[in-house]
């Protein structure tokens, strides 16, 4: 019973959430720039 609930939770909630989070991180990797700490506030 517990296993069944866990499996349902995984399939119906955690997996979709994980996929959504992974897609967002992928979007960051695709459209953002280099690592943030490399930025210099260069004002001559």
């Amino acid at each position, binding site marked *: 019973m517990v296993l069944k609930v866990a499996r349902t939770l995984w399939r*119906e909630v955690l997996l979709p*959430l994980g996929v959504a989070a992974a897609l967002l*991180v992928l979007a960051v990797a695709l*459209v953002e*720039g280099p690592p*943030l700490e490399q930025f210099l506030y260069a*004002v*001559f």
Partner: protein
Amino acid sequence: MRLVRGMLVALLALAAFEGGSRQAGWLDPSRSPDPYLGFPGTPPLFVPERGPDGADVLRTAENKRDTIYRDSRFPVPKPPGEYRVFCIGGSSVRSEIWLNPDGSFPGLLGIELWGRLSGLTPRVINAGGGGQGSVQNLEVLREVLDDEPDLIVVYPEGGEKNTIPPSPQAALAVKDDESPLRASARRCLNRLRSYQAAKLAYQALLPRAPAGGDVSSAFSALATFAVSRPYRAENFIRPFEMKLDGVPVLMEHPIPAAEIERAHARFLRNLATMAALCKERGVPLLFVQPVRNLEAVFYLRFHIAPEEIQAGRIAEWRQLYERAVALRHEQRWEEALAALGQLRQLYVEDRDELAAFLAGDCLLQLGRPADALREFERPYLQHPMRGLIERAGQQAGVPVVDPYPAVLAVSTGGIPGYEEFTDSFHPMPKVNRAIAVAIADAMAAAGIGPPQRAADSPERAAASARLDAVVAGIPVPLHTAIVSAILHGDPQQAIALGRTMPEAEMMKMQPVTAVYLGWALAKTGDDAAAREWYRKLREQTSYARSKNLPPLNTDEDIVRNAFAGDVFAWF
């Protein structure tokens, strides 16, 4: 069916996260640091706020306020009768050292327009940000088009250099050039709090880059190098005088021509997009040619590419350069000028900024200021940015304001120098006034805004008197006065000026001034005093502790690593 269910669950969870984090004020992109410096997709410059009187205002976002941009605020909606102008640009627009009274050109333009516009209340909003180039200027313009502008003024300046590789901003700019969809995607995604969380997660996943940020300009690189090495009086002098007493490095241009072309094309494209957006919304736009200190040598190009010299004449060129520099050092002005003239004949096309400067200096010493000006202004008038701004204006039908003649007219001795600029680029209030008046004149000439009052009207006289008072009431910054005294051959005066500020305060608040004072002490030949100052600089400033200092042992290193490949010759 399962897929649809899964998508619904994910969407519901994201919606709940968005709602919850907005309610709780989490992950607000306008509050967290903005490392992307206003690139497309970063949060807006101005955010809504309730003013002290309960009225709604837009105010500079917390993460850009006081560090990059001024803390500006203005009412929404625009009150009836207000004539609203946004001035967009870099640090010269921001002019953060002229806060109270406001001696920036937007501040002075407000007063000038107050005298010229009848029945309207001008409000000029300073939207200049330190180090910002056309990429960020375009984003600010895109944003303020929604804030009921009557006029937008763009003053493009040296921040453009930050989009040249290997600068990290350039990595983003180049990727955006190659795939414009990235910028659009960021604009959409960055509105989501869940995306902010994903950004944090992504950063946590990446290996940590070496900490940086300490050495962010040619000045700080050279100051750091001087202070972090064992003491020599020369360490203080060389950063500021190497270009006066040395022959430019003979080397290929460190920045590949393709990178320069790409950045110039991007600059033109950004100005054209600004013009198109303003046209679409019916908002008048003005471009302003940036002005410079013609008596400053620090950022002039210090390398010559072999192909600039006629074939087989390199040895002769070097010999003549060494001779010209030595003769100038000995104050044999006529002979130095002749040697400079000879060496300039050896170029395929003379674009030697330093030779022009040295010739200008010799002519000035010989009492020929008009001829000197022709030489001093040559690097400025030939500068590619001027041509690009002119071209962008012509192509898009945007008036280009050139304040240079007005700046010349107000310059002491007729040559814009340290009386007119605080350093190599940043204008003093009297120059900002000339810029403001030039903009107001250009508005009248282009028919922008309502008809202006006559030049002899009492209102304009009153505005002029107010401008006189503001400009006269702002003192020369200490570091400018020190540099000016040294350059005019009076290091003792520079030291006396430096001693007017308590030592601890200078070390803490104005380390740049402290380095200039070291230069003055070294110039007097008082080795003990200079050595003692060096010790204090090491102890009390962060220069000796800076990280990531690139090699700066040779002149070539300095061109490559301190002056970023002499990037200012192109931007």
